[in-house]
């Protein structure tokens, strides 16, 4: 195992403290993993092992849950994660073209992170903002009525 940096060590301490409240309880794995992902941004293998050890749950079970739910990521994500909504309303209003435009503009494919670590692209399931389709989600913020110009504005805004 690679030596942890000081920052990493701090994050693991934070995780250990966060997991304290879940110990000995049933039905808590998803919530525990959601919190772990919030701390680390994603769930690398080492974090899954840490959760498994702390909660005395087999690693296989932890992995089975992580790999099942689409909101868990085992690969790093950018500081700004731009998610194109792929719900039906967004799809019929041109979400695919939006995704392509985003890829061209950022030079990234879904699942990749830009060299400076600032951007990554993904698709997301319906965000329920169908009235403003097509929609892009960045963190908890939604941007509706998206088009080519909107993308340019959004990227410029995020780069600042």
């Amino acid at each position, binding site marked *: 195992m690679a030596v942890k940096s000081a920052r990493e060590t701090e994050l693991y301490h934070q995780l250990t403290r966060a997991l304290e409240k879940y110990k000995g309880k*049933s*039905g*808590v*794995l*998803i*919530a525990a*993993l*959601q919190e772990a992902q919030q701390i680390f941004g994603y769930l690398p293998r080492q974090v899954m092992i840490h959760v498994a050890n702390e909660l005395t749950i087999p690693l296989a*079970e932890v992995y*089975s*849950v992580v790999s*099942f*739910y*689409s*909101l*868990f990521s085992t690969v790093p994500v950018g500081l700004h994660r731009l998610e194109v909504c*792929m*719900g*039906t*309303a967004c*799809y*019929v*209003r041109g979400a695919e*073209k939006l995704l392509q435009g985003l890829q061209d503009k950022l030079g990234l494919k879904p699942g990749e992170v830009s060299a400076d670590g600032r951007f990554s692209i993904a698709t*997301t*399931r*319906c*965000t*329920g*903002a*169908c*009235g*403003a*389709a097509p*929609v892009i989600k960045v963190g*908890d*913020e*939604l*941007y*509706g*009525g998206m088009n*080519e110009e909107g993308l340019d504005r959004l990227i410029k805004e995020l780069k600042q």
Partner: protein
Amino acid sequence: MTTLLEELEQERIRPETEHRLLLCGGIPCTSLGCKKVKEALEEELQAQGAAGEVPLEVVGCIGDCSMGPAVIVYPEGIIYQKLKPEDARTIVREHIVNGRVVESLLHRDPQSKEILRRREQLPFYRGQTRLVLRNCGVISPHIDEYLKYRGYAALARALAELTPEQVIEEVKISGLRGRGGGGFPTGRKWEMMRASPGDEKFIICNADEGDPGAFMDRNILEGDPHSVIEGMIIAGYATGARQGYIYVRAEYPIAVRRSQEAIAQAREKKFLGENILEKGFSFNIEIRIGAGAFVCGEETALISSIHGTRGDPNPRPPFPAQKGLWGKPTLINNVETLANIPLIVLHGGSRFAELGLEGASGTKVFALAGKINHTGLVEVPLGTPLRTIIFDIGGGIPGNKKFKAAQTGGPSGGCLGPEHLDLPVDYQSLQEAGSMIGSGGLIIMDEDTCMVDIARFYMDFIQDESCGKCTPCRIGTKRMLEILEKITAGKGEEKDLETLQQLALLLKNGSLCGLGRSAPNPVLSTLHRFREEYLAHIRDHTCPAGVCRSLTRLRIIEDKCRSCGICARICPAAAISGARGKPYVIDPEKCSDCLRCLEECPFDAISRGGERVAAPMD
């Protein structure tokens, strides 16, 4: 005799003379820039010295998302739509300070040119019967507001005047059926749950609205969370449960937050907790947040997910009412179903049953979206014709395009065509037409939508979301998707259609849960209704709607081309050539199909689709 709706309107009228601003805080409005409008309103109120006196409340979705951001000014109830920050300042200066309605910002009916001032006058709202959405966009989601509109009065009535059996009887009389997709009679479900032996029982509110294109549960939880909580407490009282869970998807952060706040407020006012209203009944609610899995809307999978494991479904029986959460009897109702409960208990099941049809009483909220002028939530009595919803309320199809299909029920449903426009929308009629109401997603498609591509889109979604537990669904969806991809790529054969039908039958009969059993529906309904379009892809190697990229190519329409040369200059593949005075041409060999010319042409002289192209080579 007054109708239930009129009765509700009466309750709603409260003496008010002071100005008050309601700003739509629904998700689409937020995503269309309602924050900047809010800032402008606040700044201007401050500048005019009215900041403390005129309340500005951010409410849940007002309704018509295509007209957002929107603001309603009380006491007159004037609605201003599609606001920009400078408009917001004008409203404060003119309307609030000088008392002059800003006519130039009011909605003007496109046909009659008549100016419509109040929300109820707008065609989008005029045609609706907003019972479940009675509070959405009208009051802020805070409990104090809810209480002003007889909030928790139904709970008080149930605890003080009715036995649990009588509550169930009222729900049975109302004829309410599940609004989440199954359509099972709610009263009977409650009765089974009450009869199920056990000292510990649970209520789950299913807010895992995974159907892409449905957003009513989100808006109800964001705009009127207390109606759902009140419904849950009453359900607990009627069925003998003391603990409830709201299982809400993580994609809805605001719904999660509003539900959490609402639970805390209800607890503080003692509507939740021990000995509610001192009638000896105790009930608590906790929130469980999903992690992104469509199958978790299925009740046995949802229970697995609350257990903290993979959301795998389980065979039924045993039904959750017998053996559900932690092995105990569990009642699972959808958000919209529960939001109906306070109305039924307060006004009586028979009043509720007056609305809608025999066997399908009450209203249904539809999430209208796609190629339609007015998008948003539409609540109408069950049995309302599709035409009323799409054309009278939704304002028809944008850009004078032709209506092609209405997709209902999401990935489990099907498509209705123009021949169904006069169909009364209810559980049975849609099923007979090869679709279903489902959770109420209603996506409108026009002539530019390819139905084969839509079938592929849904199969792609379902294949991705299949949990993998049972073989028919795990492998069947994959095989069906491969065939659909083959057809949309122009490599389909006629025998593929037969294989699709066979696989569909296999999935319907062999899958473990509803996800797999209903997965072939979008394919079957498009195959049935739009078979010609499948055949055009297979026989003629063309996509009539111009969507499937392998089957379309860009071309310049000679009559429209003015030889301006813009397309040739911007083409990154140098595929366009021409000279002044003559129409330009695109060299298909060089064209990379980037569509830049299509977007930039000032004369709309470039099109794709409809054109027969040679079969792609393997």
